[in-house]
């Protein structure tokens, strides 16, 4: 039995040759584009191809996305003037805007600009409910000499730079600009597939990175949110099953940070384990309780004394320098976890607002 098994087993990893029916592109449900670069159904990968939902403006036709495109559209009017629309998600946040803008400008024969000119060129635009920048370039295509216009909207989120481009005849693209901005508004960043390595029949679990350590009596979010004053510039977004609330913060230079609020019954798995879990999210080592005592501070909140942690490191998922300010607020028989994490400068700017937010939160049974 062993020998045949070994023989069969060894042969399984050889070159295989087979014939298959040609793959027909499967129609996406409800205009949902999904780059299959990463296997459908695979565990989430840092920077893995994301999915997108959108509402198609009238007159736009979906075309087969080319390389690196997540979605592609063709627009044409009765005079034969046309434009091409592309959605390109790039992992790794993709370079500076200055570099990108100058490259786009060069495609329509426009001169390069300097860093100081950028804020004047960036038009604010809403992309899927989040603030993005729209850059509009028009000029003559150096190759063909045709008058052309290029609209590019940029949004950086969750370690991915999203580029939405509309390129084509100058006048026609200018006419299509409202449809383009409507399209941007309609964009929804669909939930990416998740996978756990729980036993096959186990109910899947949510975003573990935001969760307190599990406890037997963890009751997550079945209770109400605390009452709070949301600081200006914080945008609340759906946080998923295990978060009480989630806020996104973006600065004018596209830096981003997020605030996660979660709650757990009891001590949520212990202070040290939770602080070390946060440290792990920045690639930092685990500290003993005695070592933690030296780096933790405390702050008064409406629920009593809370523990505060402020650490900087590198997010292993994005390789970006990241800062995390976290507060653990014990309140009666449960514990609230507040985490501000993201771009170092932005977190530094938002720290005071975050602390005030934590300190003034009024808890449901303390109202």
């Amino acid at each position: 039995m062993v020998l045949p098994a070994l023989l069969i087993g060894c042969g399984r990893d050889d070159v295989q040759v087979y014939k298959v029916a040609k793959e027909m592109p499967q129609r996406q449900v409800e205009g949902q584009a999904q780059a299959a670069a990463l296997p459908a159904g695979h565990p989430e990968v840092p920077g893995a191809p994301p999915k997108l939902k959108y509402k198609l403006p009238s007159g736009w036709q979906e075309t087969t996305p080319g390389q690196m495109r997540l979605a592609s559209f063709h627009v044409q009017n009765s005079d034969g003037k046309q434009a091409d629309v592309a959605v390109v998600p790039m992992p790794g946040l993709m370079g500076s805007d200055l570099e990108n803008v100058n490259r786009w400008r060069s495609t329509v024969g426009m001169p390069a600009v300097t860093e100081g000119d950028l804020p004047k060129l960036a038009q604010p635009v809403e992309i899927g409910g989040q603030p993005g920048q729209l850059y509009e370039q028009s000029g003559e295509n150096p190759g063909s000499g045709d008058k052309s216009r290029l609209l590019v909207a940029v949004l950086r989120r969750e370690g991915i730079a999203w580029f939405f481009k509309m390129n084509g005849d100058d006048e026609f693209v200018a006419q299509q600009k409202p449809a383009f901005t409507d399209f941007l508004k309609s964009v929804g960043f669909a939930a990416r597939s998740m996978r756990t390595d729980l036993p096959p029949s186990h109910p899947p679990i949510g975003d573990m990175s935001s969760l307190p350590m599990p406890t037997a009596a963890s009751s997550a979010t079945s209770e109400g949110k605390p009452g709070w004053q949301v600081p200006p510039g914080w945008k609340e977004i759906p946080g998923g099953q295990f978060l009480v609330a989630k806020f996104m913060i973006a600065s004018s230079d596209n830096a981003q940070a997020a605030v996660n609020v979660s709650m757990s019954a009891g001590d949520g798995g212990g202070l040290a384990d939770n602080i070390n879990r946060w440290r792990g999210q920045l690639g930092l080592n685990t500290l003993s309780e005695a070592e933690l005592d030296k780096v933790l501070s405390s702050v008064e909140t409406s629920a009593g004394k809370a523990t505060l942690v402020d650490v900087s490191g590198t997010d292993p998922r994005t390789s970006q320098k990241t800062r995390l300010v976290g507060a653990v607020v014990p309140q009666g028989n449960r514990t609230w976890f507040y985490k501000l994490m993201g771009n170092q400068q932005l977190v530094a700017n938002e720290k005071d607002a975050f602390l005030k937010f934590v300190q003034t939160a009024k808890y449901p049974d303390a109202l």
Partner: protein
Amino acid sequence: MLFDRLINFFTSLKLTVACLALGMLLVFFGTLAQVDLGLYKAQNEFFRSFLIFWGPKGADWKVPVFPGGYLVGGVLLINLVAAHFKRFHLSHNKVGIWLVHFGLILLLLGQLGTDILSRESALHLREGETRNYSEAERQAELAVIDSTERELDKVVAIPQRLLMHRKEIRHAELPFTVKVKDFFANSIVDNRTAESGEPPSASQGIGPRAIVKETPRVTDMEHRDVPSAVVEIVTPTGSLGTWLVSEYIEQPQTFSYNNRSYALTLRPRRFYKPYSIQLLQFRHDVYAGTDIPKNFSSRVQLQRPETGENREVLIYMNNPLRYAGETYYQASFDQDNRGTILQVVHNPSWLTPYFSCILVGLGLVYQFATHLLGFTLKRRTA
């Protein structure tokens, strides 16, 4: 003389105890190692190996420091078989011992069979989508697709194991050589801007517009590696250029040679089936008024053209679909509840643990029963 010593060594009870102790230590340290290495690497280094190697960080040499799972299990198997044949003769009062030993041997062989023959993959389907293949989660393949014919594509799939050696790959079905110039087990692919000072990753396809960077291997369970490679296509008359292939790049990159069209793509390894599965509906039920999951289920349509089979199947927790030697478990789902992920397990020796337990159980019952009977009869006679 030497033969006798060998026999004594392999039939020794001390060897059994030593192997069991080593096995316990192996499981202990192999479990701890998962923290740093991740499940898959720890499994390969500790259990799917004859020796465990260690070397200082940064050094390019390693020395064996402990026996691996195959060595401990193999010696234990030899010890069990040898000791059994040396000590026990087939007689009616030893039948129980024989059964117990055969049960254990079957258990060890069955586990080896599982290790060598079993295969796990995943089938991800959006509602309405049909597929006739599942994909390995942690293995890639370079598919060289001859797409010249109208109806069928001929695929030559080169597994990741061969790509990792960065060698030339020749195959009778390919009119050219695939030369693996570089392989990155985990990587990130970025746009290469016109002003970028970095050299292009490859000369053809997307290569001039992209750069590829190697990144550290992923060890935790929530993420996986995304491999990339740079390959050169070399024909008898010369090179056609180099291509960057990556799991990040969705579209196959095409080229022509000798009036035939080819496409190159690096993708998760595929396992095609002679049947297809379509997801009709995925359901994620929760207990009323809460977010607590109650049930996950996938209603699928199973179609097998060659037999005319066409039926609906409901797969839910603890109720997998067992079909054609494969088991489809409800494993996960898309967060928008419109797609399902089925774990596909192919394990030809899945029944061996059951048979082993039955044999061991019967052996123990027989052995104890005959002793009890003998004892009772003796007391009566007395």
